């Protein structure tokens, strides 16, 4: 156990915690933030994705030690933004949601991409999604949703 200082969804937080605990377990079991999901536990599927300092990370592979001094934003935190609203509407309009299990991770991947590249090409979108598995959609409708979000949200990122 050790104390770490960090930020979670905009709030400074000080946790006395086992440094080896997975961020995913901390979020789900200690903070009851169930938006990040566990699909594989080894960084392949991206269902557990969160933003660390605005960049996508797999929370199943982040030990609590590695969030010390950083800012973590989960889908619950991101949902409070205008950018989220834009992405959400684009996902709805393009039919990009099916079973929904990968979806919060896909939204995080979208935000991480658009934060760095507000007008991405299709191939940049594919690279950005390469760590987020979806078994329902075949990806095209997700790619269309991200393209649409980028277009509608011009100036937001």
């Amino acid at each position, binding site marked *: 156990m050790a104390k770490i200082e960090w930020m979670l969804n905009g709030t400074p937080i000080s946790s006395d915690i086992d440094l080896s605990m997975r961020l995913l377990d901390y979020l*789900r079991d200690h903070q009851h*933030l*169930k*938006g*990040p*999901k*566990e*699909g*594989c*536990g*080894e960084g*392949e*599927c991206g*269902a557990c994705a969160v933003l660390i300092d605005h960049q996508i990370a797999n929370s199943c592979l982040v030990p609590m030690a590695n969030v010390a001094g950083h800012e973590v934003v*989960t*889908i*619950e935190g991101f*949902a409070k933004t205008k950018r989220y609203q834009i992405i*959400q509407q684009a*996902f*709805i*309009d393009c*039919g990009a*949601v*099916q*079973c*929904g*299990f*990968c*979806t*919060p991770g896909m*939204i995080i991947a979208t935000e991480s991409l658009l934060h760095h590249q507000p007008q991405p090409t299709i191939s940049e*979108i*594919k*690279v950005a*999604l*390469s*760590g*987020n*598995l*979806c*078994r*329902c*959609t*075949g*990806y*095209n*409708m*997700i*790619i269309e949703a991200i393209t649409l979000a980028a277009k509608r949200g011009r100036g937001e990122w």
Partner: protein
Amino acid sequence: MKFQPDIGTPIPRVDAKEKISGAAAYINDIDMPGMLYAKTLRSKMAHGKIIKRHYPTLPEGYAIIDYRHIPGTNIVKAIYEDWQIFPVDEVRYIGEPILLVVGENKDVIIDILEAIEITYEEMEPQFEWIDSVIHYHYEKKHGSRPFADANRIIEHTYETGYQEQAYIEPQGMIGYLDQDKMTLIGSIQCPYYVKNAVLMALGWENERVRVIQAHVGGAFGGKEEYPSLIACQLAMAVIQVNKPVKLIFEREEDIIASTKRHPAQIAMKAAIDSEGHIMALKVHVGIDAGAVIGLSGVVLSRAMIAATGAYTIENLDVTGDVYRTHSVPTGAFRGFGAPQMMFAIEMFMEHIARNLGKEPLAYRMAYVAKQYDLTATSGTFRDPILMQKMIEEAMKRSRYEEKALQYQNLHRYQGIGMSFFLHGCGFTGSGEATTIKAKVRLRREASGVVHILIAAVDMGQGVRTAMRKLVAHMLEVPIDQVIYDLPDTDCVPDSGPTVASRTMMIVGGLVARAAQRLGMEPQIAVEIEETYHQPSEIQWDEARMQGDAYPAYSWGVNVVEVAVDPVTGEVSVVGAWSVYDVGKAIDTLMVRGQADGGLAQGIAYGYLEVMRHHQGKIQQRNLTDYIIPTAADMPPMETYLFDNPYAYGPYGAKGVGELTLVGGAPAIAKAIEMAIKRQITKIPVTPEMIMELMTHGED
């Protein structure tokens, strides 16, 4: 009458927002006060006798649950009842669940699991396909007799491998006692399958078991029969500890222990006359059930009935065997036997044409089924078949002819392949009428709000949206006046499992009929019930496999274009075009979602997804090694729908979900054949196989 847009006009998915925000509760997102955890101890041996079990002394609050805790029957109720809830003295596959350890602290549970010693006497495992446990046979017209007069006989054998459903949400369930009622919430496709299985395992009366669906993070057949096993085990645990218990699979145990698509070996033989026409086909379908028969007989029959794919062949002799082996049980997976068969028949038709020196496309076109043709099982295709037009559309959209001509003549490692296929909607044979007997209810409250009471599960396909849209459209009320909660067996009648491309056509058909009656009902607060009746013209002889195997068929054409890297044998999927007849789309955007996702699984089945076992041990044990496509692997997809309303489907709707998967593998395999100019008889067509074919293969 108010203006109503066409039923197919897309509307927002009713559960999109809660899923996007992460608020939708999947089973692992649900916690209950005092909840314990369960973890499974699994067999490490493919076949062995359990000689001794050593269980450690358990700390207070911990329990080990095994076969001795089963009050009812030690069998998971399914089609063929040979699946034990827990083994007594013999393990039959690696990963077979032997017992559960239940308790509050996961670390303590792990310690207990590590302290348990199971002593086995190793028995000879069987991995060869020799132990046939189910054998079927049917003939059409003269059966195989024309072979005696054949001018030439052409034969090829086709092989397909395992496919893992790879839903992103692993299997999971929570059980608890509510007063004295066993209540199970789970990631499931079929609430009543689970309920009936638990009833039999417990030997309790009907009212004492309740099953509720949580949000389901993908299923694809993988949550059809398998969750019943978990539910039975969990129910025993709940009785022992009298507290809520959660059992969630880790990805690796899900992969090694849960059901997958049956590997198949399909031997095809054609009798050819002097003009090169097919006189008869002789087909043998062998599938590997693994250690448990379960649904394998039904999978086999669907495969066998699809023996001629989208074609009409006059004479047929079709046999099939389910083989039992000491490997992981196989079971339901989107397509249910049809993807294996569709690969075999589509490749075989191509190979016959090539072997005869004929142009494959024209040769195949000549055999495409037409309205009033006899089906493989001598039933009748009663409804119009639009395949000729659909094929033309697919060719036009994909520029098939131009590309095929170019790729055939140039050695540039590019190829384009086209598959024709159909899928029988609903349960095979008389299953709907004799086994399922679907029942649906609509209840209108005094406020005018209408509740849809059915057991159909939304596992991503969008049935909650589609059913509400259907009822709202028929009653001409806003969609928020129509309620459809996650099914709970205490509240909804048994409308059957969410499988077999039956939900919209069969259940939706009943819902539409109920809505129609409700619309005419003068009283506001009223409940309407509808029960399934087989259309009288549909006749099926189960024993001889003769007659109308399905009430209706959906049809499809897939075109897939590839480029093969001759240096590495890697395949890039460049484009995909599809044309479907699903009767009538209840929502074109959701149908497209099924089309894209199904085709992605079908294509990946054909070239990407490798799973093998070695001495019963699955080699690809996680999502690092079991490869499903990422965004970078999938091409843009174009889908076109042809309306062809079916009389008994709501607005004419037929099945969608499985159809979109079955044509992907043959389309990509044909495209790769064209690119490398070698004959392909096996999927997945991996770079390893391509390299081997390019080095040693035949044209």
